C-alpha cells in the first residue's frame, strides 16, 4: 500500500460553527493504481487530495503515506517527502511567471539539493517526455494553457516520484487539450506511477481505473472502472467496493 487512510476527517472552525470538509473516511491506495476522486464542487475532493499529498493534515484519523504516519512528520520531513515521493499538478498550473519553463521544471530538483547542470539535464528530459522541448526557454505566459499544464506535469515528474497527484488538471482547458493531458497521465500510470486524479467530470474520471466518489465530504462509492476487456467484472464494467 502506498497510502492508507483510517477514518480521516477534516473540519474547519468558522467563527462559532465548524465546517466539516471531509467526514471520517477510510481507504487505501495500492502502488500503481490510477484513481479518480470524483465529485461536485465543494464535495471535499481537494481536501482529501491535500491530505494524501501531505499539504494538509487531517483533523481526525490516521493517514500513512509509504508506511509513515503523517502525524509523525515534521514540516521539514513532510516537505522532503513531497519533494522525493510526490508530484503535483494543479488546475491553475502554478508556474512561476517570471521563470522560464526550464527553471520552473527544475524547481523541485533545486529543493532536492541537486546541482545546476544535473538539474538542467533532468528537466530537459522531463520536458521532452511531455513534448515541450521547443519551449524550454519561454516564459509560462508565452505558452498556451495545454502547454503550461504539460510543463507543470514535467515539473511533477522531474524528481521521478512514485505518486502523481493531479487536482482538476483539465479544469482550465478545452476538452481536446484536456484529453491530451489525460493521455499523458495515463501514460505515466502505465509506466508504473500511482496517479490520483481529482475531477468533477465523469468522463474524465472514467479514464482512471478506480473512481472514488465524494459528496458533501463523504465517500459515497469506491469502484473500479473496467476497460473494454473483461477480467472478472460485472456487466456495467464496474466492480463494487465497500465504501467506508
Amino acid at each position, binding site marked *: 500500500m502506498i497510502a492508507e487512510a483510517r477514518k480521516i476527517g477534516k473540519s474547519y472552525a468558522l467563527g462559532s460553527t465548524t465546517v466539516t470538509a471531509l467526514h471520517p473516511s477510510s481507504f487505501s491506495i495500492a502502488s500503481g493504481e490510477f484513481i479518480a476522486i470524483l465529485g461536485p464542487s465543494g464535495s471535499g475532493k481537494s481536501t482529501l487530495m*491535500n491530505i494524501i*499529498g501531505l*499539504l*494538509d493534515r487531517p483533523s481526525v484519523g490516521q493517514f500513512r503515506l509509504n508506511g509513515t504516519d503523517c502525524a509523525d512528520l515534521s*514540516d*521539514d520531513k513532510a*516537505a*522532503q517527502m*513531497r*519533494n*522525493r515521493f510526490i508530484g*503535483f499538478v*494543479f488546475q*491553475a498550473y*502554478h508556474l*512561476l511567471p*517570471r*521563470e522560464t519553463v526550464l527553471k520552473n521544471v527544475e*524547481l*523541485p530538483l*533545486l*529543493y*532536492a*539539493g541537486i*546541482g*545546476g547542470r544535473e538539474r538542467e539535464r533532468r528537466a530537459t528530459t522531463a520536458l521532452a517526455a511531455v513534448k515541450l522541448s521547443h519551449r524550454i526557454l519561454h516564459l509560462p505566459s508565452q505558452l498556451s494553457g495545454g502547454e503550461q499544464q504539460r510543463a507543470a506535469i514535467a*515539473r511533477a515528474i522531474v*524528481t521521478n516520484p512514485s505518486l502523481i497527484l493531479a487536482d482538476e488538471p483539465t479544469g482550465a482547458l478545452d476538452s481536446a487539450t484536456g484529453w491530451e493531458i489525460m493521455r499523458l497521465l495515463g501514460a505515466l500510470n502505465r509506466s508504473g506511477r500511482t496517479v490520483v486524479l481529482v475531477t468533477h467530470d465523469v468522463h474524465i474520471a472514467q479514464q482512471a481505473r478506480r473512481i472514488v466518489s465524494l459528496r458533501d465530504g463523504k465517500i459515497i462509492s469506491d469502484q473500479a472502472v473496467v476497460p473494454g476487456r473483461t477480467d472478472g467484472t460485472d456487466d456495467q464494467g464496474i466492480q463494487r467496493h465497500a465504501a467506508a
Partner: protein
Amino acid sequence: MIKGYSVMRLLDYLSAAGGAMRANPFRTFLTMLGIIIGVGSMISMAAIGAGAQAQVQDQIRSFGANVLMINAVPRNRNGIREAGNVRRPLTSGDARAIAELGPVRAAAPSVAGAAQVVHGSLNWATTVNGTARDHFTIRGWELAAGRLFSPDDERDAGKVVVIGSTVAHKLFGDGDPVGQIVRILNAPFEVIGVLREKGTAGDGQKQDDVVFVPLMTAMMRLIGSANTVNRDAVAYILASARSETSMTAAIMEIDALLYQRHDVADDDDKDFTVTTAASILAAQKASTRTVSFLLGSIAAVSLLVGGISIMNIMLVSVTERTREIGLRLAVGARPRDVRKQFVLEAAIICAAGGVFGVILGGLLAVGVAKFVGWRVLLEPQTALLAVAFASCVGIFFGYYPAKKAASLQPVIALRSD
C-alpha cells in the same frame, strides 16, 4: 561535497531573490532609497573622516612626531587680551633652558620674516628664518648639498644662508648654488647649503620655499629689533623630545620651566603655548567631529527608515507572492528554504542600495572636497564594509517578513487567488 551543495544553494537562492527585484524595479528602487541615503551619508562621513586623518598624518609627518613648538601668546586676563606687546617674550635663554631639560633632546630658538632674495637679475620673495642648526636636526631635515651653519657662523652672525629647494630652483635653475652669493635686504650672503626637498605640508604650505640664516644674523641684520624691550626675544622655539614616550614629560617640564621663568601665576596668566602633532590632531578632530556627527545621525535615521521600508515592502511582497510560496512548499521547499529566500531578497535589495549609496557618498565626498576644500579619502574597505552593513540591515529587517512567509501553510498558500 556537502559544502559544494550549500554554495550552489546560495546561488540558487540568489537567483530566486533577484527575480522579484527584476519584476518591479521601480518599487525596488524606492525601497532602496533609505538605504541609499543612509549608506551615502555613511560613506561621505567616512571619506571626510579619513581625509582629515590623512591630512593630520601628513601634518604630523611634516611637523615631526616628537616635535614641540613653543609660541608666545598675549596674556589673557579675565577674558581680555592685553593690548600691546607680549610682556615677557620667549628668548634664546628660554630655548637654552628648555634644551637642558631631561626629556628634551634639542631646542632651537627661531625668528621669521619675509624678504626678497636676489641673485643676479633674479629675485624671489620668500620666508627668512633665523635659527640654530639644531632646527634641522629637530625637523629631520637633511642637506642636498653643502653644509649647515658652523658654530662660528652662529656666534659671529655670519652672512651665510641655507636655502630651500624651491628657492634654489627659482634663483639658480639647475646650477649649483653652493658658494654663490645672494643678497637679502641688500646684504650679501654666501649660500653654504641647499636643503633636500620636503614637499607640501598637510595644510598646503610649501615647506621648501624658505631660507635659513643663523639666529644672530637674522636678529642683527635682517629682522631688526622687533622687540625694543628685549633684544633677546625670539618668535618661537622648536624643540624635540628624546622619544615618543617622553613627549608628555617634555610638555610638562617645559610648562613648569616657563611658568617659573615667566612668573606665570596660573593657567589664565600663561603667555605661551606648546604645540605638538598630537595637539594639532586634537584640533583637527574637533573640527570634523561636528560634521561626522551630523552625517552619522543622517546615516542612522536613514538606515532605520530604510530598514523599515524594506520590512514593509517585504511584507507586501509576501502577501503578493503567497501562491509562489505555496508552490515552492508543495514541490519540496522546507520552511527554512522559503525563509532564506526572503531574507536573502531583503539582503540583496539592501546590498544593491548600499552600492548605490557608496556611489552617492563618493560623489558627495568629491563635492565636499571641491566646494568646502576639505581633504577626503574613500577607502575601498570602507565601501565594502558599508555594503556589508547595508546587507545586515536587510537581513535584520527582512527576517520578520521572511518568517511570516515560511510559516504559511502550503494548502492555504496554494488556495489564495
